[in-house]
């Protein structure tokens, strides 16, 4: 069920350059079904900025009715969000969309993330590990200052970091690491920039994969047709990233 709730800020901290980790508490956590879903946040009570901001869910704590978001503060909306202090309330609409199919992986999965696409992979890694699936994490960032959650991912499995400028881990993109790794996994999951998703898809045409897409959204629930993408099914077939996705099996979405 989708709810709109004033959730309370439990914690807010900067964890990398322009990257914030925000934990909020409220009932709608109980409705979160799967990793990869997102929430739609209203950052101001006024109409400036007007639209909600879609933000992915990084970690779900059902016992405490809390969840974690990790976001990049870069525009008017997210910089207002970064000002929310402990005890403040935030208007959250969610959980929205369809996430990663946790049951698809059998024994070993690659989790491949880029930048602000990394956060939803954390909850996914936790749930896969809980099911006994081995996870390998391949995460790309701009530079050393932008890296976050490295230790947390390491605690769950083998973790490789790439930075564009080479200031940490392998220099280059996640695909440079993928080229060096064995193909002994059964399923991959990926979230990040569209170019990265395309590259990952090309790297493993024979594997089962799931990709989380990003697209400019309006309503976030499927009514406004802003975030539509064509599919490989037919000339006239399309999906809405917000409500049909944001996660789709590899080979479905045309970007």
């Amino acid at each position: 069920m989708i709810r709109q709730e004033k959730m309370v800020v439990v914690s807010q901290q900067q964890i990398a350059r322009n990257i914030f980790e925000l934990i909020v508490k409220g009932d709608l956590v109980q409705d979160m079904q799967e990793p990869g879903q997102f929430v739609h946040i209203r950052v101001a009570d006024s109409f400036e900025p007007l639209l909600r901001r879609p933000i992915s869910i990084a970690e779900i704590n059902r016992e405490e009715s809390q969840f974690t978001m990790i976001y990049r503060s870069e525009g008017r909306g997210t910089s207002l969000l970064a000002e929310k202090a402990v005890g403040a309330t935030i208007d959250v609409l969610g959980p929205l969309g369809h996430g990663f199919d946790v049951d698809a992986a059998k024994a070993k999965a690659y989790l491949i993330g880029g930048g602000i696409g990394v956060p939803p992979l954390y909850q996914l890694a936790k749930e896969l590990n809980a099911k006994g699936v081995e996870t390998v994490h391949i995460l790309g960032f701009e530079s050393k200052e932008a890296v976050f959650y490295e230790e947390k991912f390491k605690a769950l499995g083998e973790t490789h970091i790439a930075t564009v400028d080479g200031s940490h881990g392998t220099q280059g993109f996640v695909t440079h690491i993928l080229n060096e790794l064995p193909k002994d996994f059964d399923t991959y999951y990926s979230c990040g920039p569209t170019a990265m998703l395309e590259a990952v898809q090309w790297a493993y045409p024979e594997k089962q994969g799931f990709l989380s897409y990003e697209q400019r959204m309006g309503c976030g629930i499927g009514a406004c047709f802003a975030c539509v993408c064509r599919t490989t099914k037919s000339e006239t077939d399309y999906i809405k990233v917000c409500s049909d996705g944001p996660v789709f099996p590899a080979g479905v979405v045309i970007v």
Partner: protein
Amino acid sequence: MTNLTVNLPGLNLKNPIMPASGCFGFGKEYAQLYDLSQLGAIMIKATTAETRLGNPTPRVAETSSGMLNAIGLQNPGLEKVMASELPWLEQYDTSIIANVAGSQTEDYVEVARAISSAPNVHALELNISCPNVKQGGITFGTDPNIARALTRAVKDVSSVPVYVKLSPNVTDIVQLAKAVEEGGADGITMINTLLGMRLDEKTGRPVIANITGGLSGPAIKPVALRMVYEVRKHTDLPIIGMGGITDVTDVIDFLSAGANAVAVGTANFVNPFVCPEIIAALPEKLHDLGYESVEELVGRSHRL
């Protein structure tokens, strides 16, 4: 007891609040959140004769207190709307206003004839004002002679009253209102979006793939209000007013300026519960202003 009912051609509304076309799909998404029977009416997404896939993305961009969109009338086409969307809406006790769009007169006529025969369609909203399609749309809404002729052609085939949706992208909107009245329109809905654009600050490239888009949201409310006020001075046709409505105070403004009912568009994206919240707040607001019914308040700014 405050009386919220409004009676207009084809529409016996339990209250004057309805979601605007294009901001509410065919209702399914919002039905997950609340009972659509609360709504005075629903203006469903524009329907064209054939399936339309719409414009390339990005299709939306935020602006100061507003947003631009260039969806491009994406819809499943007349056949599917008749076969699945409209029958699904029959479970709700609310009036359906079907928005009809096309690229040429024949398209409008075809869609209007068919969709007006659906048992739960109570009125048509003739879309002659979409700024985001290359053919048709706004070109029908900027030339009074063409608008008059199209209205007449659709009136001739429609089995329900026809409301014509006016574009604000004209020099004199009153002229267009008079033209569609002469064409036999039963009512007017106004305003559609204002044509605008936004550039990427780094590259100078338009943010919307269609280059231009329609501006909506609180930013356009003063323009919409002024236009409703002007048109009301020159016609007795029912007006369904819209443009930047976000709360009950905005509703009072539009009713005061002469709208008989109102539609809420972009605000649904910001607060998906905005329509039921406004409906709940309306009786007290009217009472506070000294009115016992919506109809008493309509047009009060013209009686001062």
